């Protein structure tokens, strides 16, 4: 088998730019009582930093704060207002 051409291909690597969570100025906090486990936030998260909710186990979503950059898209998209953006350090 011949080797393929040299192409501009990148494979995903976890943390290639370090722990990008350090870039955050706001961090998301989910209210487990309000979370209906629809996982809309998980779908919208551009950084794959949300672990999806599990309805069967009645577990709400969880955040991977090492890589969440605090963009707030999850809070914006949450249909129940269950996610709040809190200034870092509060």
């Amino acid at each position: 088998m011949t080797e393929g051409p040299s192409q501009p291909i990148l494979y995903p690597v976890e943390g290639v730019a370090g722990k990008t969570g350090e870039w955050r100025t706001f961090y998301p906090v989910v209210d487990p009582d309000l979370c209906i486990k629809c996982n809309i936030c998980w779908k919208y998260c551009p950084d794959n930093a949300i672990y999806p909710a599990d309805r069967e186990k009645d577990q709400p979503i969880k955040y991977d704060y090492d890589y969440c950059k605090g963009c707030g898209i999850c809070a914006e998209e949450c249909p129940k207002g269950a996610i709040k953006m809190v200034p870092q350090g509060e």
Partner: protein
Amino acid sequence: MVVKQELKSMTGNDAAAYAALFAKPEVIAAYPITPQTTIVENLSNYVDEGLLDAEFIIVESEHSALAACMGAAWAGERTFTATSSQGLLYMAENVFWSGYGRLPIIMPVVNRCLAPGWNIWPDFQDSMAFRDAGWIQMYTKNNQEVFDTVLQSFKISESKDIALPIMPCYDGFVISHTTGQVNLPNAEDAWEFVGPYDDPVIELDVKNPFAFGAMTMPDQYVNNRKDLIAAMERAKKKIIDVHKEFSEIFGRSYGNGLVEPYGDDDDDLSLITIGTMGDEAHEAIDRLKAEGMKVNALRVRSFRPFPEEDIVKFAKNNHKLLVLDRSVSFGNAGQVGIEIESALKRNNVDTPVKKLVRGIGGEDVPYSKIMKDAKEALKE
């Protein structure tokens, strides 16, 4: 042994469509444009009639047509499209993406001049504008060669050590819409020659996802381009090898596959041509010889990669070259002429080169006009 073939009458576009049908592309995406349209019309009929099991994607523009082909090529599928002129220009961004991205896409370019003024007749300005896009470009002289070249294209382009998209180019209307004789092999023999695309250059794998064309730092970018340069160099031998294999099976050849000489060496004047002017040049040579002149011809079949070694060797053995281009780089001269002149200079060959631009915007270039140009060059 040469396989049995059937002599048929068909247009150049029919010939291109037959070659594509026999090579069984898995994905075809195209947008109609004169004079290419009937290629993909034929193919869509083949798909409709169940003769061809391909995904035929109807798109809203040429830019999307090539984008769809790129997606298919990334998925590791055999991919075909065709275009012309303004359509090719509209594809521009993706032409470079697929060339620099090393995606084996087979795309006949039915050459048509560029607007303004609006004109549907042939010259090579459209494909020549993409000379530097990292595509192989082969120019053909008649309907038979269109079939043969499109069929060969799959083997050249999809080879893993080449991995370059390819434009088989041919004069609009003069070839595309003119009926001529084509010796057509049966589908099985053609398939036996082309074979399946089973060792893809690149293949989408959802279990091992990758990003294509993401931010690339200068050192990696340079490596990509160096590999493209090397692949173009390797493509010369690949074109020769595929052409040789083709000739053994189907009994037809075009010089060594890169250039097609006509007549003997050591003549006073050599006509260097491209496209259908090459066919007319043969007639001109025969008549000039009958008048007692020492002339021969060389047709450039592969323009990218540029067959420098063959052209230099040919020039060394002759006394004067007259290059007829069907396109022009404004501010300089015809592209073939410019490149031949520089190749000779690089190799310290001092055979004089006269450059002429002929047949722009569909201007007819019959053998009589070529004879007149040749006689004038001989007098100088």
